């Protein structure tokens, strides 16, 4: 156990030795080692620096979580004095050169710096990508070593827990959360303080605090990044929640696809216990709170709150009817609160800085910031945290660096399989919970996938329905059968067999599923269809009436043709066509037999003369 004075000493020590400006000639080299960085090849970079710097006491090599610029991974930061230099797209060879020229020679290797809009940036902090962000939930990600509790403590870690234990009553904590205006970041946006107050009001021998780290929206990775980059922030917040509602046990439900997050959480729990910040008699008081980890097993519906609790109980993760609400009867029939990872990541900061500080950020009804996982057709794929109310245009064009290859923005998809798309005409929408609902999408957990003119919106709707058909737990008929029927209709349309009446049927079916499903999965499953129909009805009509896919995605609707002017008769396409659909003699223009063609596009990829086109 560490006393508060000892924790303060650790904080001062780490700040002086690690975070303060080092003496000239003393270097810290930080390598981003989150899943994304590791996938991009950060491990050999880390090893190269470790090896090069072995025995050099003027150069410390360390790991951090992720800074959120996936596009540029592996990323290395070199810190000397107060100066940060960010190297991007590194590999082991480049690491050796940076070590030799920068660490030993004192010269920045400009070849490996980040170039944004033609401007070379010395450090990440000089980029527009970074400058337009406001990092609260991500404040430690990419800054601290997530496997070292001392570095978390140095950045005010566990100070909020100390404050609630020594100065605040349960009611005080709930009131701060209420006043802050914090709303759940897991999708629905329910006010966190309200949820806590319901559970606090229950009289029960046992209560639970749960954390939803199931991150089921495919294409979202905010929660993973927080867990991998700043796990103690979640532990501290859950403990504060335990104090607020009077619970002694917490569970983090993590999807099993996140092994690095699980590993770091386990390390963090162990360290927090050693310091007396978790477990029995926290900070020497009689407050006890423990946290266990439960792994998901690949069922999207388990992100839904009642299903998640059923799954922690070790059963098939089927949703339960509400009421009773979890705050009254949740996990093991006891009052339970469930919050999302990012929701928790805001809690300690709100306690420390006050409700007014938090509620000064954002819009009238959506306070604070939101983390988005930018993906799809966007230059800067990565994680960004912006104040609520930032426009979609700012996020996509300025922070995200726009669309690659000079293509045009078509839509942004938010809310994953439960959400919808935001078309170009709403590019200037100020992103918050209510504005997104108003235009037929939703905030969701923060996945933001950008699509360009090459993405077919009917195909995207079909993609999401394929997902929900697969993930429907089957407990209720409208969801189980209805989503399958929606999918079949979309398949009919993209297959070129659609009729105009199918659009009406899509709409009627969607309404029926929304109104009659038991849980949020079914209730929101038709959203991708409804929102694409609302803004891209013309694409549906092109598939149905003209039998064309305007974005050239839906294979059955493609026609391949050879331009006789350009074809030199090299025969390559004919030799490679799996369907033997191409005929012609050497040095004569070839032709495709459309009845035989299976639209595989092999010929187009093979023609060196650009003679083949698709329409």
């Amino acid at each position, binding site marked *: 156990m560490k006393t508060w004075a000892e924790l303060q000493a650790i904080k001062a020590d780490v700040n002086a030795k690690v975070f303060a400006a080092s003496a000239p000639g003393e270097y810290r080299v930080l390598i981003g080692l989150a*899943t*994304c960085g*590791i*996938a*991009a090849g950060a491990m050999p970079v880390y090893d190269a620096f470790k090896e090069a710097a072995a025995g050099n006491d003027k150069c410390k090599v360390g790991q951090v979580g992720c800074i959120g610029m*996936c*596009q540029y*991974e592996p990323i290395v930061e070199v810190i000397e004095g107060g100066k940060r230099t960010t190297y991007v797209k590194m590999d082991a060879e480049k690491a050796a050169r940076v070590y030799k020229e920068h660490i030993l020679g004192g010269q920045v290797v400009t070849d490996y710096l980040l170039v944004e809009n033609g401007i070379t940036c010395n450090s990440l902090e000089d980029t527009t990508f970074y400058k337009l962000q406001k990092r609260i939930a991500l404040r430690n990600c990419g800054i601290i070593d997530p496997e070292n509790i001392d570095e978390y403590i140095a950045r005010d870690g566990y100070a909020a827990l100390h404050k609630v234990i020594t100065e605040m009553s349960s009611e005080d904590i709930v009131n701060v959360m209420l006043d802050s205006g914090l709303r759940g970041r897991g999708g629905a946006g329910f006010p966190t303080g309200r949820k806590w107050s319901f559970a606090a009001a229950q009289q029960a021998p046992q209560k639970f605090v749960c954390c939803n780290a199931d*991150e089921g*929206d*495919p*294409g*979202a*990775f905010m929660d*993973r990044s927080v867990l991998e980059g700043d796990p103690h922030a979640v532990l501290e917040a859950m403990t504060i929640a335990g104090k607020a509602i009077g619970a002694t046990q917490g569970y983090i439900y993590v999807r*099993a*696809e*996140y*092994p690095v997050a699980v590993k770091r959480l386990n390390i963090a729990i162990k360290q927090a216990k050693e310091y007396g910040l978790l477990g029995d008699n926290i900070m020497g008081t009689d407050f006890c709170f423990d946290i266990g980890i*439960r*792994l*998901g*097993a*690949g*069922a*999207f519906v388990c992100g839904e709150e009642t299903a998640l609790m059923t*799954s*922690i*109980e*070790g*059963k*098939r*993760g*089927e949703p339960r009817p509400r009421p009773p609400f979890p705050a009254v009867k949740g996990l*093991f029939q006891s009052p339970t609160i469930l919050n999302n990872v990012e929701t928790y990541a805001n809690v300690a900061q709100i306690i420390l800085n006050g409700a007014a500080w938090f509620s000064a950020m954002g819009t009238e009804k959506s306070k604070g910031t939101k983390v988005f*996982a*930018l*993906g*799809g*057709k966007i230059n800067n*794929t*990565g*994680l960004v945290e912006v104040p609520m109310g930032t426009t979609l245009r700012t996020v996509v064009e300025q922070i995200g660096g726009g669309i690659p290859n000079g293509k045009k923005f078509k839509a942004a*998809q938010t809310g*994953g399989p439960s959400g919808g798309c935001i078309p170009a005409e709403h590019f200037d929408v100020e992103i918050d919970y209510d504005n997104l609902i108003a235009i037929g999408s939703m905030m969701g957990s923060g*996945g933001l*996938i950008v*699509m360009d003119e090459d*993405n077919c919106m009917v195909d*995207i709707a079909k*993609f*999401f329905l394929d*997902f929900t058909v*697969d993930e429907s*737990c*089957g407990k209720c008929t409208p969801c189980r059968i209805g989503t399958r029927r929606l999918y079949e209709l979309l398949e009919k349309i993209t297959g070129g067999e659609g009729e105009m009446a199918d659009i009406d049927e899509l709409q009627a079916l969607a309404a029926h599923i929304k109104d009659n499903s038991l849980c949020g999965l079914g209730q929101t499953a038709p959203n991708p269809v409804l929102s694409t129909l609302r803004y891209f009805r013309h694409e549906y009509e092109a598939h149905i009436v003209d039998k064309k896919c305007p974005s050239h995605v839906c294979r059955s609707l493609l026609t391949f043709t050879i331009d006789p002017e350009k074809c030199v008769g090299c025969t390559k396409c004919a030799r490679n066509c799996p369907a033997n659909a191409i005929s012609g003699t050497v040095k004569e223009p070839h032709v495709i037999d459309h009845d035989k063609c299976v639209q595989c596009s092999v010929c187009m990829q093979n023609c060196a003369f650009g003679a083949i086109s698709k329409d």
Partner: protein
Amino acid sequence: MKKKMSSVPFNGTPEQEAKLDAYIAEHRAEEGCLMPIMQEAQLIYGYLPKEVQIHIAEKLEIPAEEVFGVATFYSMFNLSPKGKYQISVCLGTACYVKGSREVLDKICEILDIQPGECTEDGMFSIEACRCVGACGLAPVMMVNGSDVYGRLKASEVEAIIEKYKEFEREEKEYENMG
């Protein structure tokens, strides 16, 4: 979510069973211990044979149907053995819009199997998965849940598969030498 029970004969070892029993003994008193036990069993055996599920049910003194029910509900429980190299291609949204379908098709073509299947020699199995959280590097594929390949092109997968075949050949050579 239909799943097939394996028809491959079960050949667990006493060591494996002892390991599982030790884990069960340690955790059986915890509320909700069934899933963690099944997850551990899958780690030990590589999949969840019917025999192992029945064993777990007997040890925990619960109906075998309950264990089967959980095993079939969650997609990560494998009821039949996987390849030595388990390839999963991400079909999450970020990867899908960047063309991961083509990557998956290409691998199926190279290995001549469909998603969910295993090659005859037991070397490779392939499946589609949903988002491994490396969306920024889309399209993404994983081998054995740990080797992650990002920013993939369909034209690159052949070389990756070759790499694992090469491992295999080297391993065989060592065996022959030793």
